[in-house]
């Protein structure tokens, strides 16, 4: 049996009056790369810390490879964490940091040296073992934190926003490195982030968390293509979200009416005639003067030039749509009248966030 399967069963945790995690159940397969994605305060870090044993759940059970570890202290769990701000020991050298867990495991001295060296090589820090931690750059510290955790060959590696303190270029580099590390180790990774791009790029599956619950879980493609709730859609960069009333709906297509009287067609399922609901469409699915069943007349307001594409803000009555177009401005300028077009398949049906269950 592959090792490193994590199973959370109706786990809850409150801090005082604040419910951080509410009855979350979650199965992580052995060897999977699962990301907990959500804004700060959504409970993702608390969930991670409960897997590590650094917080104990108020209710619910936690299983590792089928074994109940709910009451095991952190030092007895085959789980290691890469902390948000690395949490490297300032009184130890780089090698001393990586060796810490091995020493705690009672490995003989003769074994520790080579293992530390190998771990440092793996994160491309060979030869820096004697350095003090405060002599390292942010990216190097990050890699020491990784080496310190993986040298123990944990069954599950937990990563708590490991890249949030790095600048953009370094972050992209580390992203590739974490991905390749996962491939090489085959260990279960549970990764916490608020960065949707990071989540989509790295994960086998993503769990989007909001207010202590998992609002939607699926592969990156599923989440990207079919976000189910308004919250998930907003978090995954569906920038155009409008409240509508459903005019008509049959099996194949629905017609919805925005508050400003626009009629839009959607091929999403689940619409019920007469209901009030949200719809959303990604900026990159909108075109200025393109094909598509949906056509909205408007006026260009602003343009953000983003290099490979431009982002336009288009005012259509009381609504503002964001359109992301590849290439240059084609001679358009603010004030021009335009028609925004998009396919019925691009218009998503979005439910309100799952109502918070009473704690």
């Amino acid at each position, binding site marked *: 049996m592959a090792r490193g399967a994590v199973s959370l069963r109706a786990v809850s945790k409150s801090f005082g009056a604040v419910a951080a995690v509410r009855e979350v159940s979650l199965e992580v397969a052995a060897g999977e790369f699962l990301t907990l994605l959500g804004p700060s305060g959504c409970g993702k870090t608390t969930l991670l*810390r409960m897997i*590590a*044993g*650094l917080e104990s759940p108020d209710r619910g059970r936690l299983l590792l490879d089928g074994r109940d570890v709910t009451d095991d*202290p*952190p*030092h007895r769990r085959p*789980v*290691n*964490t890469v*902390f*948000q*701000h690395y*949490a*490297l*020991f*300032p*009184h*130890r050298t780089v090698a001393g940091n990586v060796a*810490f*867990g091995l020493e*705690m*495991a009672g490995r003989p001295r003769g074994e520790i040296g080579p293992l530390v060296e190998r771990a440092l090589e793996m994160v491309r820090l060979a030869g820096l073992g004697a350095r003090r931690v405060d002599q390292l750059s942010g990216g190097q510290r990050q890699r020491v934190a990784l080496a*310190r*955790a993986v040298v*123990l060959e944990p069954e599950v590696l937990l990563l708590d926003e490991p890249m949030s303190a790095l600048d953009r270029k370094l972050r992209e580099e580390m992203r590739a490195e974490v991905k390749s590390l996962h491939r090489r180790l085959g260990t279960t990774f549970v990764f916490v982030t608020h960065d949707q791009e990071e989540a989509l790029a790295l994960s086998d599956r993503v769990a989007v968390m909001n207010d202590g619950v998992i609002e939607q879980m699926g592969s990156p493609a599923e989440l990207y293509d079919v976000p189910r709730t308004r919250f998930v859609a907003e978090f995954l960069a569906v920038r155009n979200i409008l409240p509508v009333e459903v005019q008509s709906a049959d099996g194949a297509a629905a017609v919805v009416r925005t508050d400003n009287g626009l009629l839009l067609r959607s091929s999403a399922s689940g619409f019920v005639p007469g209901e009030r609901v949200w719809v959303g469409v990604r900026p990159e699915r909108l075109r200025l003067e393109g094909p598509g069943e949906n056509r909205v007349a408007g006026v260009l307001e602003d343009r953000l030039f983003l290099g490979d594409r431009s982002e336009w803000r288009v005012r259509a009555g009381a609504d503002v749509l964001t359109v992301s177009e590849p290439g240059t401005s084609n001679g358009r300028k603010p004030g021009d009248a335009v028609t925004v077009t998009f396919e019925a398949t691009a218009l998503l049906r979005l439910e309100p966030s799952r109502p918070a269950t009473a704690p």
Partner: protein
Amino acid sequence: MSPRTRQAVLLLAPAVVLLVVLVGGSQVLMLAASLGRRSAYGGVIPGWSLENYLRALEPLYIRVLARSVILAAATTIVCLVVGYPVAYWLARRAPPTMRRALLVLVILPFWTSFLVRMYAWMFLLRTEGLVNLALGSLGLPALALLYNPAAVLLGQVYGELPFIILPLYASLEKLDPALLDAAADLGAPPREVLRRVVLPLTWPGIVAGSILVFIPSLGAYLAPDLLGGARYVYVGSLIQSQFAVARDIPFGAALSFALSAGVLLVLWIFRRPLQAGSGEPG
């Protein structure tokens, strides 16, 4: 002088002048007196003699010094053992909203004179004191609680405890809780987290607090005198008696100067382990 230097000089001048005149000046006077001889009427006859220092090395006085070193060491150790958990709780476990009030409680004893507090201990510990009164009312025999080394240690620990709690608190408060999480996560049971992370990282506070307790305890006078009775002489009372009772100013000065020099020497010898706050003990 650059504006920066001038600012530094102006800011530091009052304290430096005060220290040079009062501490440096008095040490110079003491050194001079210690090299002289006692006059018939208790004055000082100037001279260049080491006689007083040689006399300080007599077994009688070495025993007094040894007793004082033991008292100071015991006070420091007891203060560390008692104060560290208190500081840990204050810095890491106490409700943050109450922390300030609790710290005020730590220094509250300073609002009363040390002398008065020592008399309070005498009142508690003496044969007809409150403790023995309570024991008596329970039908238990009275205990000789006062006028012994344990009473001196008790008074000394009581008086010095705040001086060790405050620096320990300061270093424990700075300790990043994520480091404790990381240690536990990497397999360290609580005992090892304490030994390998908490203690090494709070070493500067341990050293500062120990110095703050050890040095005054070495020359302590009030607690030994009031709670120890006449049978146990400590360096502080010995020096005091040379000036006030024996009227032997040169010998008192020599004892006093030797003690200060000894403390400085010890601090200098151990300066490396004391500074190596980041070094892991053991």
